[in-house]
C-alpha cells in the first residue's frame, strides 16, 4: 500500500464519472443501452472508494495524502512576485469517508433509477447527468484548495440545474432549475469574494498553507475584521448550497426534479457540500464568524421545521426536513461541535436518501401521486418501503438505537454546552424545539402515508411494491441507519470508531483573542502544528460532558412528545388536526405558505430588479439613445440652418448681386433706343451739364 496508489485511485474515482458522462451524453442517443455503462462506471467507482476508505483508515489513519500541480502561472509580476495557481487533491479521513458516502449513495441511486426512470424520454441523458453530478461532487470532496472547491462548486450547481430541469416541459421544473442556479450563485459570489480576500493576502488557495500562515499569526490585512469577514463570506457559499436561511428557498422547489435526484443531490450529497465546506474552513473561523454560523443554522432549522409541519406533498415535507437537518449541521459547526456535525452529515445522508428513495417508491406505486392526503394504508401494499421508511423516520426523529439519535444527540449536547459556556441559550432552545417538531412532522408523514385507511381507493388498488432494484437500495440505506455501524454503545457516540479514531476536531488556527475561550486549548500555546489531536479545551470537553445526559434525556423526551402528538392527531384522532388548524389559522397559514418568503422575495428583490431593469431599458432607449439621436437631430438642424443661410444669405447675396446688375442693365437698356435724335439730345444735355459743372469760362 503506497501513497501514490491511493492518490491514483482517488483520481480514477474522480474522473470515472466524467468519462461516463461524456460517453453516455454523446453516444446515448444511438445506443440506449449505454446507461448500463454509466451504472457500471459508478459501481466501479464505488468499489474503489470502499477500497480507498479501508486503505486510508487502516494504513494512513493519521496521515494526509495529497498532490497538486500548477494550473496557471504568471512569473515576476511587477512589484508582486510570482503568481501560481495550483490545483490539487488531498485525502484525509473526512475525504475518504465522504468519497465512500457519495459513491455509495450515487451507486444506489443509479440502481434505483434504472427502474424508477424506466420509459423516460431522456433516459440515457438522465444517467449522463448523474455522471457529471457525481464527478463534480467528488471534486468538491477531494480538493485541497479553495479555487478548485469553487470550480466544482459551480459545476455541482450546473448538474443540479440540469437534473432539476430534467422534465423541462413543465414550467415549474424549468423555473425551479433556474431558481436553484441563481439563488446558489448569490451565495457563490459571497464565497468567491471571501476566497479573493484569502488569496490576495496569502497568494495561495491551498487550505493547508492558509491555515499554516494563520497559525503563525499572519491574518488577512492584519485585521481581525477581515478574518471574520473572510470566514463569513466563504460560509455564504454554504448558505446557498446547503439551503440556509435566507437562501433556502430553492431547495423545496428543486423537488420538481426526479425523485432519485432529490435523494442523491437535494438530500444526501450536494446540499451537504455546504456543511463539508464549513468543516474545511472550520479552523479559520473566529468567534464572531462561528456565532453567525450558529445563529443562521439554528434559525434555518427552526424555520424549516415549522414549515414542514403543514406541508401535504410528501417530497415537500422531506425537503423542508432536509433544510432543517442541514441547519442542524451548520448550527453544530457554529457551536464548535465539529465532529458531530460531520457525523450527522453522514448519518443524515443515509437515512434521508432512504426516505427520499422511499418516497420515490411510494410515488412510483401511486402513479405519480405526491399528495399525502390522497394516500394512507400503504403499509399493506408496500411492506418493504414501509419498514425502511419507518426505520429512517425513527432515525431522523432521534430515537435511541438509531444513527440519527447518536449524531443529533451530540449536536444538541454541543448546543447546550455552547449555551452554558457563552450564555447564548437561544441556540439550544431552538435546537431542542426542532427536535420535537421533527419527530412530529415525520411521524405525521408516516401515519398519513402508510397507516390508517386508504383515502384514494382507486390509486390504492393499483399500488404495488417496487421491484428488487428499487427495494434493495432502500434496505441497504435503512440498515445503515442503525447505530451498530458507528459505535458499539448506542448511547455513547464518541465511544465508537467513527468519532474516536476517524473524525477528530482540528484545533482552531485563528489568533487566541478572536477565538471562543472554549476553543482555545489552554494547555499549551503551540499553534504551529496543524491537525493536532486535541479535540477542544478541557472547558469544552467538560461542558460537553455536563450536557451529555441532560441533552440525551431531553431529546428523547421531546422526540417522544413529538411522536405522541403525531399519533394523537393522525393515528388515534384524539385531537382533530383540522379544527386545530382552524383555531390557529394565522400560524397555520404562515407555516403552510412557508413564512411567505417566496412572496416577500417576489415583491422585493425580484420585482425590484425587474422593474429597475425595465427602467434602465427605458433610460437607455430614451435618455442615452435620445442624447445620441438628439445630437444627430441638432446636427441636422444646424445643417438645415446652414442650408437656409446658404440658400437665402450666401446664395441670396450672389443672386442679389446678379439681380442688381441685371436691374441696372435693364434700366440703362432703355436709354439705348437706337435713334440718332435721342443720342444728340443726350450729347447736348451732357455738354451743357459739363459746361455748367466745370465753368470753363
Amino acid at each position: 500500500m503506497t501513497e501514490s496508489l491511493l492518490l491514483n485511485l482517488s483520481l480514477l474515482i474522480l474522473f470515472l464519472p466524467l468519462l461516463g458522462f461524456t460517453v453516455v451524453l454523446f453516444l446515448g442517443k444511438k445506443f440506449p443501452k449505454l446507461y448500463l455503462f454509466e451504472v457500471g462506471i459508478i459501481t466501479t467507482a464505488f468499489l474503489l472508494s470502499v477500497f480507498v476508505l479501508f486503505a486510508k483508515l487502516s494504513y494512513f489513519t493519521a496521515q494526509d495524502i495529497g498532490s497538486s500541480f500548477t494550473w496557471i502561472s504568471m512569473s515576476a509580476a511587477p512589484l508582486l512576485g510570482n503568481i501560481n495557481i495550483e490545483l490539487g487533491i488531498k485525502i484525509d479521513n473526512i475525504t475518504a469517508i465522504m468519497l465512500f458516502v457519495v459513491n455509495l449513495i450515487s451507486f444506489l441511486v443509479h440502481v434505483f433509477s434504472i427502474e424508477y426512470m424506466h420509459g423516460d424520454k431522456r433516459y440515457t441523458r438522465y444517467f449522463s447527468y448523474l455522471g457529471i453530478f457525481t464527478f463534480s461532487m467528488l471534486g468538491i470532496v477531494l480538493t485541497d484548495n479553495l479555487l478548485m472547491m469553487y470550480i466544482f462548486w459551480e459545476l455541482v450547481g450546473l448538474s443540479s440545474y440540469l437534473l432539476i430541469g430534467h422534465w423541462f416541459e413543465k414550467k415549474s421544473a424549468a423555473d425551479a432549475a433556474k431558481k436553484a442556479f441563481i439563488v446558489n450563485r448569490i451565495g457563490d459570489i459571497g464565497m468567491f469574494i471571501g476566497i479573493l480576500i484569502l488569496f490576495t493576502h496569502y497568494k495561495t488557495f491551498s487550505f493547508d498553507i492558509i491555515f499554516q500562515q494563520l497559525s503563525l499569526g499572519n491574518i488577512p490585512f492584519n485585521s481581525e475584521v477581515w478574518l471574520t469577514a473572510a470566514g463569513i463570506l466563504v460560509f455564504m457559499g454554504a448558505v446557498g448550497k446547503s439551503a440556509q436561511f435566507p437562501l433556502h428557498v430553492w431547495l423545496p422547489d428543486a423537488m420538481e426534479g426526479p425523485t432519485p435526484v432529490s435523494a442523491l443531490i437535494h438530500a444526501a450529497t450536494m446540499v451537504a457540500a455546504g456543511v463539508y465546506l464549513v468543516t474545511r474552513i472550520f479552523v479559520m473561523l473566529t468567534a464572531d464568524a462561528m456565532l453567525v454560523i450558529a445563529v443562521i443554522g439554528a434559525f434555518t432549522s427552526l424555520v424549516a421545521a415549522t414549515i414542514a409541519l403543514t406541508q401535504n406533498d410528501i417530497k415537500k415535507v422531506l425537503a423542508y426536513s432536509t433544510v432543517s437537518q442541514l441547519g442542524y449541521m451548520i448550527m453544530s459547526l457554529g457551536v464548535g461541535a465539529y465532529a458531530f456535525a460531520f457525523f450527522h452529515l453522514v448519518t443524515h445522508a443515509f437515512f434521508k436518501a432512504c426516505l427520499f428513495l422511499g418516497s420515490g417508491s411510494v410515488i412510483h406505486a401511486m402513479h405519480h401521486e405526491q399528495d399525502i392526503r390522497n394516500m394512507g394504508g400503504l403499509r399493506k401494499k408496500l411492506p418493504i418501503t414501509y419498514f425502511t421508511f419507518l426505520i429512517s423516520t425513527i432515525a431522523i426523529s432521534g430515537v435511541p438505537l438509531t444513527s440519527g439519535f447518536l449524531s443529533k444527540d451530540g449536536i444538541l449536547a454541543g448546543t447546550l454546552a455552547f449555551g452554558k459556556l457563552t450564555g447564548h441559550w437561544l441556540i439550544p432552545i431552538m435546537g431542542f424545539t426542532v427536535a420535537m417538531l421533527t419527530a412530529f412532522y415525520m411521524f405525521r408523514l408516516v401515519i398519513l402515508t402508510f397507516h390508517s385507511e386508504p383515502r384514494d381507493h382507486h390509486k390504492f388498488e393499483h399500488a404495488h411494491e417496487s421491484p428488487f432494484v428499487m427495494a434493495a437500495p432502500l434496505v441497504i440505506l435503512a440498515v445503515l441507519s442503525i447505530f451498530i455501524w458507528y459505535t458499539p454503545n448506542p448511547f455513547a457516540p464518541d465511544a465508537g470508531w467513527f468519532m474516536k479514531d476517524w473524525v477528530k476536531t482540528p484545533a482552531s488556527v485563528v489568533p487566541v483573542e478572536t477565538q471562543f475561550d472554549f476553543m482555545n486549548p489552554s494547555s499549551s500555546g503551540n499553534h504551529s502544528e496543524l491537525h493536532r489531536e486535541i479535540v477542544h479545551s478541557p472547558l469544552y470537553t467538560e461542558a460537553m460532558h455536563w450536557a451529555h445526559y441532560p441533552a440525551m434525556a431531553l431529546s428523547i423526551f421531546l422526540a417522544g412528545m413529538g411522536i405522541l402528538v403525531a399519533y394523537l392527531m393522525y393515528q388515534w384522532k384524539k385531537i382533530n388536526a383540522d379544527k386545530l388548524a382552524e383555531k390557529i389559522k394565522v400560524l397555520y397559514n404562515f407555516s403552510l405558505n412557508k413564512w411567505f418568503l417566496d412572496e416577500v422575495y417576489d415583491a422585493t428583490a425580484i420585482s425590484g430588479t425587474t422593474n429597475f431593469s425595465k427602467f434602465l431599458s427605458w433610460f437607455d432607449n430614451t435618455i442615452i439613445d435620445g442624447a445620441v439621436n438628439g445630437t444627430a437631430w441638432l446636427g441636422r438642424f444646424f445643417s438645415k440652418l446652414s442650408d437656409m443661410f446658404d440658400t437665402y444669405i450666401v446664395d441670396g447675396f450672389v443672386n442679389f448681386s446678379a439681380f442688381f446688375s441685371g436691374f441696372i442693365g435693364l434700366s440703362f437698356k432703355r436709354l439705348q433706343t437706337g435713334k440718332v435724335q435721342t443720342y444728340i439730345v443726350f450729347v447736348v444735355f451732357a455738354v451743357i451739364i459739363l459746361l455748367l459743372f466745370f465753368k470753363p469760362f
Partner: protein
Amino acid sequence: MEQNLLLTYLLFTPIIGSVLVLFIKQEQKNLIRWFGVLIASVAFVISLIVYFNFDASKSEFQFIHQIVWIQSLNVSYYIGVDGISLLLVLLTTFLTPLTLLSTWSSIENNLKMFTFSILFLEAGMLGVFLSLDIFLFYVFWEAMLIPMYFIIGIWGGERRIYASIKFFIFTMAGSLLMLVAIIWLAVYASQLTGKFTTNLIELYKIAPTITQQIQGWMFGAFFLSFAIKVPLFPLHTWLPDAHVEAPTAGSVILAGVLLKMGTYGLVRYCLPLFPQSAVQFAPLISVLAVIGIIYGALVSMVQTDMKKLVAYSSVSHLGFVVLGTFAMTIESVQGAVIQMVNHGLSTGALFLLVGVIYERTHRRDIAYYGGIAKIVPVYSTALLIASLSSIGLPGLNGFIGEFLILLGSFKSQVLDNWWYTVFAASGVIFAAVYLLWMYQRIVFGVVKNPDLKNHLTDFNKRELIVLIPIFVFIVWIGIYPSTFLNLTEAASQSILNHVSSFTFDFLK
C-alpha cells in the same frame, strides 16, 4: 533590424483576395463562396505559422516589417506582433472563415460585394492589430469602418440604414479627436527630438514625458475613441442597433473582433503612451466599467429580442475587460486579454446560434419560441454551452477571464478599493439570470408555436463545421488556459512594467 515578410503576407492575403473576388462573375455564387473561405483559410494558416514561430518568452515585437511610406512625415509601413496582438490576430483569422461559412445560404443578394467586404474588413482588423506605426494604425482603424458600414447597410435588417449611419458617425466622431492627438504627438516628438515621428515604439518613450495636464487631454482623445468602440457605458447605444440590424456574419465579426479593437487600443495605446494619465483616471474609468457590467446585464434582462439581449450582454462583458485593463495587475490584464478572446468566442457563438434559428424562422423575438429542446436537441445543447460559457461557468472559457480580472482588480494598487470587485462580481449573478431566463423561454417548456415544428431543423453539417471549432476553444480555454495565457504573458508584463516605471509614485 531583420525584416520579416510573413505578416505582410498575412495582411495582404485578404486584401488581394478581396480584389480578386471582384473578377469572379456574380452568377458563380458557389465559386465566390469557396474562394472567400479559401482566402480566409489561407490567412488563418499563415497566422498559425506565425504562432508556431513566435517566441512567447520575449516581450519585444516580432516578425517586424518596416518600409518607409511617407518620407517627409517619417511615416512608415511598420508592422509586427507581440503576444497580445498575435492572440487577437489569431482570433480574427480564426473567426473570419467561420463567418463566411456561416453565411453560405443566408446571403444571396450581391454576394460578390459581401465577400469583398468581409475580406476587406479582415484586412482592416488585422492592420489595426499589426500596426506599429500610429499613423498606419489610424488608416486601418478608419478603413475598416467602410466595409462594416456596407455589411450593415446592405445586408442588414429593416432599420439597417439608421443603424449603419449611427455606427459610422458615432465611431468616426470618436476617432477624429484621436487623429488630432496623433498629429499633436508627432509634432511634440519633432520638437523634442527634432524629428517628426509616428513610430509607436519611439513614442512609447517620448509620450510619457508630456506634462501631466496635456497628457490628460491626449489620453482623453485616445480613450474616447477606444471607449466608443468597446463600447463603454454610456457610449454604447450604437452597439445594440448595429447588432440587431447586422446580418449574422456582421454581428459575429462585430462582437468577435471589432469591439476588441477598442479594448486592444486601450492596452496598446492608452496605457503605455500615457501611463500617468491612465493611472490617474483608472478609478473613474473603472467606475464606468463596473456600471457598464451591471447596467448591461440589467438591461439585457428585459430585452425581448434575442440579438439585442446578446448585444447588451456584450456591454456587460466588455466592462470586465476594461476593468481588468485599468486595474493594472498582471492577473487582471492577462484576464482582460483572455476575456477579449472569450467574449469573441462565446458571444460569436451566441450570435451564430441566434442566426441559425433566425435563418429558419426569420424570428428573433424570444416570445415566439419555447419548447424547442424537443425539436432541436443538439441545437439546444449547443445554446446551453454557449450560454454557460457566457455566464462564466468554471470549466468553460468565460470563467477564466472573469476570475483573473476579479482576482486582479481585488488586489489592484491602482484602484485600491475592493468595492469595484464586489460590484463587478454581482454582474456574474445577473449574467446567470438573463441568459438562463432567455434559455428557459426559448428552449424549455412545451412547443409554443406549431410553426416551429415545421420550420426548425437541427444543425446541418456546415453549421456544425462552423460551431465545433469554436466550442473546442471554449472548452480548451476553460480547462487549460495556460496555452493562451503563456502567449500573452510577456507582453502584458512588459506593458505593466512600462507603466509602473513612469508611475512609481502611484504604485508605491
